[in-house]
Each structure stands twice: as C-alpha cells, then as structure tokens.
C-alpha cells in the first residue's frame, strides 16, 4: 500500500491511497501521488506498508466531549467509513466510554470494551493493549481527537492500526515544543496571508468573497460576516483583532486583509469595550499613510472613546457610521461598485 501523508481526513476517497502488487507498481503509484494535491494539500511524504489481509475493520477514537466536559472513547465494529454517519444512522453500533478527567483509561476498562466489541481470549488482551495505548498517547499529547479508522483485524486475528490521525490542541503547544519543531514545516493548509496573520497573532480565515472584514471579537466578526451575506454581499475573510487592540495591531490586520487582491471594499467594525476607538482610528490612519487606503472603506465605530475616535477620522476626512446594519449595507454597495 502506498499512502499519502497529508493533514486532511478522507485521503483514500481523494486518491491518496494506492495498491501496488510489485515494486514497479509501487514506484508508479508513488510518483502519481507524490507532488499531487489531496483536498488542497500537497503531498510531500508517503508511507509504504504491507497490504493487510483484512477480516474486519473497526473504529477506535478518543474525542473531546464538550457537554460531558471529558474525553470520551468511541469504538465500533463498523470502521473504515464515515463515523459521523454511523453515529447518526445507527447510534447503537457505537460504544461510548467517558474517561474521568485526570485519570487513565485502565486496562480492565479496555478489556471490557474489547469484549463488548465481540472478542474473546487473547484477542481481548491484544486489542485492549492497543486501546489503552491510544488513550494514553492522546492525553499525553493534549489531543482534541485521536482516531484509528480503520483499526484492522487481520485474517490471522491480529490488530493493526491501518490509519491513525491526531489533532493536537493549539492551546497546549506551549508544553509540546519538540512536537512543534517537528511539524514546523507542514503548515500547507494555510494561504500566505493566513501565515502572515498567524505571525502577527491575528485570527484570520480566508473566504472567497470580496468584502474585506476586520473587527474586534470573534462573535462580532462572525455576526458581521453573516450580515454582509444577508445583505447580498460575500465576505472575503474573517479577521478578529481580539480585545484591547493597539493602533499597530489594527494596522497589521488592515494590511493583511487589504493584501487579498479579491477584496473590493473594506468594512472595519468596532464595538469598543477594552478596545479603544481612538487607537483604532490611529491604526487606520497609519495604514493610509503607509500603503494608502486603496479600497473603498466603511467604518463603524462605537464604544469606549468613540468621540475621540470619530474626531480623528473626521479630521482626516474619513466618514464613520454608528450601526452595524447601515455599515454592512454600505460595504456591500461599495463592493458592487457603488460610489
């Protein structure tokens, strides 16, 4: 088997896994996959392994259960397929075991689980060893999701993880420095602007519309995107400067958003809490001086120090609006070419 090593799920269906019976076939498969793109991810690494004689495909995964506030182990005799679909259509085929926070998933719990999956004797012992290992690895690396899909039972009755995927919690990276070093070069999924935004510490997601958006607070920015769409426009990005942004941070954000050539109009939406409107205005002027406000711009500025903020803009000849609705509607008009 020749398998693409990429940071997306569902590589098999996307042509990232090929079967080869001879070394020649393997070479052909490898050259077909290497350098190709799987769901937008360029393939630079392959895993070549022995083809398994599969008796059964299982699913084993450890997920973060948000409402139970703990890790939950999911296991199913129906593996190798979309596990969410299984969960939706036949929830009875998924066994769930919540893990007590701060405690390991013990050997006996894993043996009981293996038994529930229909195994006996030595297979109980072998499968349970794999399960406890998966759980301890997942918690050790602060994973949000660790899953083996499929976990294969071979015709000889052995268990092999034919696939293993782990998503590590970004917030835990401060205690996983070695891991961070190893994976430094594999941020393929990010666009150049997303990389730049990450360096500046901005929350930025590129979308495919033409109204550039900058705001303070994740919820407010999401609400802004929704409103732009409701008014018939298409947001070009999500960009959150967070709380208490300085003029510099505002300038950084505007620079990133205006760096996207698709942007036809810019909407700066500020509801000042700990963010001060005068700082925002200063940041905007800084950008205008440095690179010019090349795109038609709408500013909605309310909250802490709004009078000062508005005055700075007024003196510079830049109008600002008070309601999010008015500003969103105007931004959509501007993106469509209105004067």
């Amino acid at each position, binding site marked *: 088997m020749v398998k693409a090593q990429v940071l997306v799920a569902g590589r098999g269906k996307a042509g990232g896994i090929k079967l080869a019976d001879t070394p020649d076939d393997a070479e052909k498969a490898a050259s077909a996959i290497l350098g190709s793109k799987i769901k937008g991810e360029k393939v630079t690494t392959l895993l070549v392994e022995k083809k398994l004689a599969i008796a059964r495909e299982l699913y084993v995964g450890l997920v973060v259960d948000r409402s139970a506030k*703990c890790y939950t182990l999911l296991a199913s005799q129906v593996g190798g397929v979309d596990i969410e679909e299984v969960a939706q259509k036949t929830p009875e085929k998924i066994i769930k075991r919540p893990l007590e926070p701060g405690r390991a998933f013990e050997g006996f719990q894993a043996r009981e689980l293996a038994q529930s999956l229909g195994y006996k004797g030595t297979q109980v012992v072998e499968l349970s060893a794999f399960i406890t290992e998966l759980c301890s690895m997942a918690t050790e690396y602060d994973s949000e999701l660790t899953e083996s899909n499929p976990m294969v039972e071979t015709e000889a009755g052995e268990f092999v993880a034919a696939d293993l995927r782990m998503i590590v919690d970004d917030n835990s990276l401060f205690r996983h420095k070695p891991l961070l070093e190893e994976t430094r070069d594999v941020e393929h999924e990010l666009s150049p602007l997303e990389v730049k935004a990450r360096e500046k510490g901005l929350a930025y997601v590129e979308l495919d519309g033409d109204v550039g958006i900058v705001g303070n607070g994740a919820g407010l920015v999401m609400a802004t995107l929704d409103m732009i769409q409701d008014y018939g426009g298409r947001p070009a990005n999500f960009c959150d400067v967070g709380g208490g942004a300085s003029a510099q941070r505002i300038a950084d954000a505007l620079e990133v958003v205006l760096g996207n050539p698709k942007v036809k109009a810019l909407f700066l939406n500020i509801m000042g809490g700990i963010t001060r409107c005068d700082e925002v205005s200063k940041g905007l002027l800084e950008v205008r001086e440095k690179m010019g406000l090349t795109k038609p711009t709408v500013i909605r500025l309310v*909250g802490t120090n709004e009078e000062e903020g508005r005055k700075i803009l007024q003196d510079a000849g830049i109008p600002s609006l008070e309601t999010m609705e008015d500003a969103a509607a105007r931004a959509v008009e501007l993106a469509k070419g209105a004067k």
Partner: protein
Amino acid sequence: MAILVGSGTKAIVQNITGSQGTFHTKLMLGYGTKIVGGVTPGKGGRQVEGVPVFDTVNEAVSKTGANASIIFVPAPFARDATLEAVSHGLNPIVVITEGIPVRDSMDLMARAKEKGCVIVGPNTPGIITPGECKLGIMPSHLFKRGEVGLASRSGTLTYEIAASLSRASLGQSTCLGLGGDPIVGLSFVDILEMFRKDPETKSVALVGEIGGNAEELAAQYIKETKYPKPVAAYVAGRTAPPGKRMGHAGAIIMGKTGTAESKLEALKAAGVKVALKPGEIATLLSKK
C-alpha cells in the same frame, strides 16, 4: 436578586499585579465591586489600587473573608491558580484567561463540580449584575439594571446586544459570557435554570455561535421543561466554513456538528424567538 454575583460578592483578583489584573481591578473598584484582596505568588505584602496582595489564596481568604475570585493568570499557570481557588471553595470563579489547554479545563471542571463551585469561563469577559457587581472586563456603561437575563458565548457580541437592550429601555438582571472555549464551566442549560429561579429575571437572551451543541441542548431543555419565561436567541456564524476555527477555540464546525443552521432550527422548534441580526434581540423581547 439576579444570579451568581451581587452586593454580597467579595472577590479576590488572582494575578492582580499583572497589567490586565491591575487595570481591571481599578475599573471593577470604580464600579463598586467589592475587591477585597489580590493574589500573586511572591508578591505578598504589596498593595494594588489600595487592595492588599497575598502570596496564596488561602491567606487572602482567611484575612479578607473573600467568597469569589476573578483570574487573570496566564494560560500555562491558569490550571494551578483555578484549582487553588476551587480548593478554597470560592464561588463563583471567573476565569478571564484565554488559551487554556482543553485537558486542563476538563480537570478544572471536574474538580469544581466535586467542590460545588461555579466556574464562569474560561475565555470569558466575565459577569455583571448592573449597578451591583461587575466581575469582569466589560465596558460597564453599556449595561443597565432591569429584567432581561443575558448569556453569551462571545464578548463583544454581549456588549453589542446589551447596548441595544439598554437603548430600548430593556435593562438586564445579570449578563455573563460563558466563554469562547470548547470546555467551559456553565452551559446555556445551567444558566436557563438559574434565570428560571430568579424572580427578577422576566425574559432571557441567549447569544450562541458555531461549534459544539450547547444551543441544541438549550433548545431541548426549553422544550422539555416548557420554559416559563420568553427566550430570544441569536447565533453567530451562519457563513462560517466547516473545519476552520473562527477566532474562539470553541467556534469550529467539526464534520456535521456545530453548524448555525442546526442550532437555529432547534431553537425555533423549541419556540425560541430567533434573531437574524444581533440588534433584533431587543425588538423580539420588547414585543410581548
């Protein structure tokens, strides 16, 4: 009355000597919140804004009689600091810190539950009972005392909606941010339960966003309990693409879970008045 915080709240500020801790201690004191002490290990004996600083929560509690805490401790140390507050039974504990690892938060919530402590957050702007007590970082002038209970997963949207409620002469009993992380102390269901029991709260506003299923669970609860007070809701992120984190660690659609559509449908089906713009919450709640 309101919920969780009020005139009886006597709070300590953990990491009071940090820049955020000091800045917001001043603002909270200015609002009239009883900040009785601060804690920064190694800096005991000082004063910040006239508030005594202690090395441990234990010392702060025994010398000041504090019953609540607000935490500004950086993420790598927030677990330790929060457990310290939990071990002394402080209630509520407001965790402002953003970026706490999920595994730490799961531990914290389990320990807080054992001790019967309420944790607001992490990654929250805090909680305010207007005119009585502010344990948070929100701009207080936007809030007015009244009869709407407001719970939100977002900071600035809380301000946005509180401001529009206040403009429409709809004051608030208590407003709080649940926190933008995947694991937080309070769910919408917990809050709905508290607002149901609070005689001052006559209606409830919920502000949700993509990610998880807290809104769906709230809808189910409202339906099953035939919730006695009017509820209006707004959910942000209808345009968010799946698999991308939208600013908050918890705001992510994973596979088919966590979409705004699913949340809005569930809320509508439960009889909740659904706003498509943040400003509409005030309109929906002023119509009886």
